[in-house]
């Protein structure tokens, strides 16, 4: 993998831009895909949001000043894109965000790209009930296995706050699962 600084420089120069962008996509596509997928759940929606995320990254790379790491800047864009997508979707369907989350989790059962067992389905339903911030932190820590320091940079929250948020999320999920059993 080429150094981040070189990659950013190449992304900003017209003659090296296309190749560098290809490298950028190939480096981050899977990580960002799973990050978005766990927010929007549906594969096709994820594909749309992921492509829009990369397009936004490409369009705004000139303005990237390097105050944060490239991956956290991209994760931030992906998170915002995914959340905006869900807001637009709930508006379009005329339902509240909470209702949409519940529907999305229920739809998993019939989703060909979900192969989870009953407990994994219950887990997704429990995650769907969490407030937005807890959901993001739980997914990023538990499934994506990001470090608190990384999550802190992406979500611009203190590490201490994140640990407490994660703990709360886990307790709520455990309680939901127990209730289901």
């Amino acid at each position, binding site marked *: 993998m080429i150094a981040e600084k070189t990659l950013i420089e190449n992304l900003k120069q017209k003659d090296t831009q*296309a190749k560098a*962008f*290809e490298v950028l*996509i*190939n480096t981050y*596509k*899977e990580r960002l*895909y*799973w990050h978005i*997928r*766990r927010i929007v*759940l549906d*594969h096709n929606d994820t*594909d749309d949001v*992921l*492509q829009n995320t*990369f*397009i936004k990254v*490409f*369009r*705004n790379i*000139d*303005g*990237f*000043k390097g105050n944060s790491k490239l991956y956290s800047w991209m994760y931030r864009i992906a998170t915002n894109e995914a959340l905006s997508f869900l807001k*637009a979707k709930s*508006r*379009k369907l*005329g339902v509240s965000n909470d209702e949409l989350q519940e529907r999305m989790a229920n739809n*998993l059962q019939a989703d060909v*790209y*979900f*192969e*989870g*067992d009953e*407990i*994994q*389905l219950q*887990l*997704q339903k429990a995650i769907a009930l969490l407030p937005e911030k807890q959901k993001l932190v739980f997914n990023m*820590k*538990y*499934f994506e296995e990001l470090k*608190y320091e990384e999550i802190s940079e992406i979500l611009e929250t203190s590490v*201490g706050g994140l*640990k*407490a948020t*994660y*703990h709360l999320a*886990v307790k709520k*999920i*455990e309680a939901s*699962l127990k209730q289901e059993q």
Partner: protein
Amino acid sequence: MSEKSKNSGFRTPKGYFEHFTDDLLDKMSKETSGLPKKDGLKVPEGYFDNLDKKILKKVTEKESKVIRLKSYKKYFLAAASVAAILILVLSIQERGQSSFTFDDLARTDIENYLEENELGLSSYELAEVLLTEELEVNDILNSELDDENIIDYLEDNIDDIDELNLEIDE
């Protein structure tokens, strides 16, 4: 802070209280007993294989036909208003009710209508049909903004203010 309790003679290990919060939060956040480690989500076979080519193609396609807008949201309402005016004018003319004009509609009614009804236009579609040169920012805002406020806002929120090619009267 003294590490020795006042009367009892009990002591705590050095730095105990300094690390207490972090240690406790660490311990709490590691407790995930009984939760499945996998989420069951899967991806279509070969999905990632040509993703880079697909996105690059999309970027070059859009680059060539779309005017770049840093923020299109503020134009959304205006574009939607233009569309609403056209629809209203046409439908009014058709019914021959000349006594009822667009001015009779409360601004909030129009806003509510636009809020609640998805127009189904993407930002790119809006960018293509919207004549932005005829729009003033104050046309679509409830309160007047002065230049100084706008420049301050842009400086804080736009990545590269020079890219906007602003003409500022000193």
